[in-house]
C-alpha cells in the first residue's frame, strides 16, 4: 500500500505541475471513452484518472515542458522515472482490483441465494444481501452428491442460482464449508442425519400410500365407466356407479339428501340475510 500510495502521489504531483504550467492548449487528447466512463468507486475513479493521464509520455517530472505542439511531446521518449512510476501504479492498481474482485466474489458466495428473477452477475455486481432463506434457493444443487447432477431437482430448472458464477471461482476451503453448511440446513438436502432420514422415509411412505389409494380409486372408476358403457346399462345409470363408489353407504341417497338439505338451508339463510340487509336501507 505504501509503494502504491507513493506512486499515486508522485504521479499526481507531476500532473498538477503540468496543469499549472501548460494550460488547456497542450493538454493531451483524451479518447472520449475514457471521459464518458462512469466510475462509482474511488478505486475506479483513480484508475480512470490515471488512464487519462497515461498518454502524457513526453512529460518530465522536474522540468517544465516547452510550449510546443503535442506531436513533439508524443514523439519524445518518456523519461524512465515517470515510466517506472506509471508502471508501478498500474501494477498496484491491478493488484488492488484483483483483491477487490476476490472479496466481492467471496461475499457473493456467502449469499448462496440469488434473488428470484435477477441475473447472478448483476446480483453480484450490486450489493448482495446474504439472505439465507432455503426455500428460495436451489440448495439441492449444493449437496455434495447432487453437485455433479444439476437440474434434477423439481423446480430447479426454473430458478437461476449464483452457482454458475460460483463454479468458475476456485477458492479455498471457506466456500466449500459454507456450501456444506447451507446444504445441511436446507430442507431439500439429503437426509444425512438419522432423524432426517426417518422423516424422509415417512414422507415417502405417505406419498406411496397416497399413490396406491389413487390407483385403487382409478381402477374403481374404470370399472364403473366400463359397466356404464355396456349396452343395456342405461336403465339405471347412477345406481351402479354409486354402489361401486361408495360401498359403505356414506354417499347414499338419504345421506346426500340430508347433506343437500343442510346445505340448502345454510344457503337459504345466507340469501335471506342478504335480502334483509338490502331491504333495510329502503
Amino acid at each position, binding site marked *: 500500500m505504501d509503494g502504491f500510495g507513493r506512486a499515486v502521489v508522485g504521479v499526481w504531483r507531476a500532473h498538477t505541475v503540468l496543469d499549472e504550467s501548460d494550460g488547456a492548449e497542450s493538454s493531451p487528447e483524451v479518447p472520449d471513452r475514457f471521459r464518458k466512463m462512469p466510475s462509482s468507486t474511488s478505486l475506479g475513479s483513480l484508475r480512470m484518472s490515471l488512464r487519462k493521464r497515461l498518454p502524457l509520455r513526453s512529460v518530465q517530472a522536474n522540468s517544465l515542458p516547452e510550449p510546443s505542439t503535442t506531436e513533439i511531446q508524443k514523439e519524445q521518449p518518456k523519461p524512465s522515472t515517470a515510466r517506472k512510476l506509471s508502471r508501478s501504479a498500474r501494477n498496484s492498481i491491478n493488484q488492488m482490483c484483483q483483491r477487490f474482485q476476490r472479496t466481492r466474489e467471496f461475499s457473493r458466495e456467502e449469499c448462496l441465494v440469488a434473488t428470484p428473477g435477477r441475473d447472478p452477475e448483476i446480483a453480484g455486481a450490486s450489493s448482495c444481501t446474504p439472505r439465507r432463506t432455503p426455500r428460495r434457493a436451489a440448495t439441492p444443487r449444493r449437496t455434495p*452428491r447432487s453437485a455433479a447432477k444439476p437440474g434434477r*431437482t423439481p423446480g430447479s430448472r426454473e430458478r437461476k442460482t449464483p452457482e454458475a458464477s460460483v463454479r468458475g471461482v476456485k477458492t479455498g476451503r471457506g466456500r466449500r464449508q459454507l456450501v456444506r453448511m447451507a446444504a445441511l440446513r436446507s430442507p431439500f438436502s*439429503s437426509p444425512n442425519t438419522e432423524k432426517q432420514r426417518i422423516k424422509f422415509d415417512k414422507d415417502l411412505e405417505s*406419498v406411496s400410500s397416497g399413490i396406491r389409494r389413487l*390407483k385403487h380409486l382409478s381402477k374403481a372408476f374404470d370399472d*364403473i365407466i366400463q359397466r*356404464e358403457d355396456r349396452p343395456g346399462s342405461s336403465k339405471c345409470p347412477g345406481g351402479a356407479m354409486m354402489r361401486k363408489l361408495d360401498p359403505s353407504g356414506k354417499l347414499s341417497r338419504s345421506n346426500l339428501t340430508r347433506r343437500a338439505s343442510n346445505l340448502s338451508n345454510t344457503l337459504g339463510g345466507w340469501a335471506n340475510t342478504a335480502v334483509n340487509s338490502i331491504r333495510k336501507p329502503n
Partner: protein
Amino acid sequence: MSGQSLTDRIAAAQHSMTGSAISKAVCKATTHEVSGPKKKHLDYLIHCTNELNVSIPHLADTLLERTTSNSWIVVFKALIATHHLMMYGSERLMQYLASRNTLFNLNNFLDKAALQGYNMSTFIRRYSRYLNEKSMSYRLAAVDFTKMKRGAEGVMRTMNTEKLIKTLPIIQNQLDALLDFQPNSNELTNGVINTAFMLLFKDSIRLFAAYNEGVINMLGKSTKHIINLV
C-alpha cells in the same frame, strides 16, 4: 305428441314439408315440453353425425339456432342435445364445435316470463359455460378427456412430464366449470335439469378419472426424481 305446444307442432310440420329431417329432429328434441329430450330424437341425431353425407356444420348450426330462443325450456334442451351429441355422437361434431371461435353466447340469458325462469336461467348460463369449456379443452388438448383410453396403458398414465404439465390444468379448468353448475337437491325439480345433471355427473366421473390418472403419473415421476437424488 302429448305436451308439445302448437308452436312446436307447426315448426315440425314446416320442417317435414321442406324435407329437412335434421331440422325436424332438432325441433322435436327441443320442444317446450318440460322434460328431457326424447331418446328416439337424440338417437336419430347421433345416427346423423355418423353419416358421411350429413353436413355437420348444418346440424351444429341448427342446434345453436335453438339456443337463441327466449324460452328457458327450449334453450336448456338444446344445450342438453348438444352435450349428448358431444358425448355419444361422432367426433366430427366435437371437432367442428371446437373449431368455432364462439359457441354458446348465453352469459346474459334470462327468462323472466316463465315460473322457473329465473332459477333455470342461472343453470343455463353455467351449463353453457361448461360446454364452452369442454370444447375449448378439446381445442387445446386435441383429445376428449371423457373418451380417452384409461388404465395402466392409458393416455394420462403414459404421458410425458412436459405434456402432463400442460394437460392437467386444462382438465382442472374443465372440472372447475363442471363443478360450478352447483345444483341443490331442491332445485332438481323438473325433467330438464335432471337430464342435464345426469349428463354432467357422467362427465364428472370420466373427467375425474382422467385427472386422477394424470396425478398418479405426476406423483410417480416426481417421487422417482426425489429417490434418484437421494
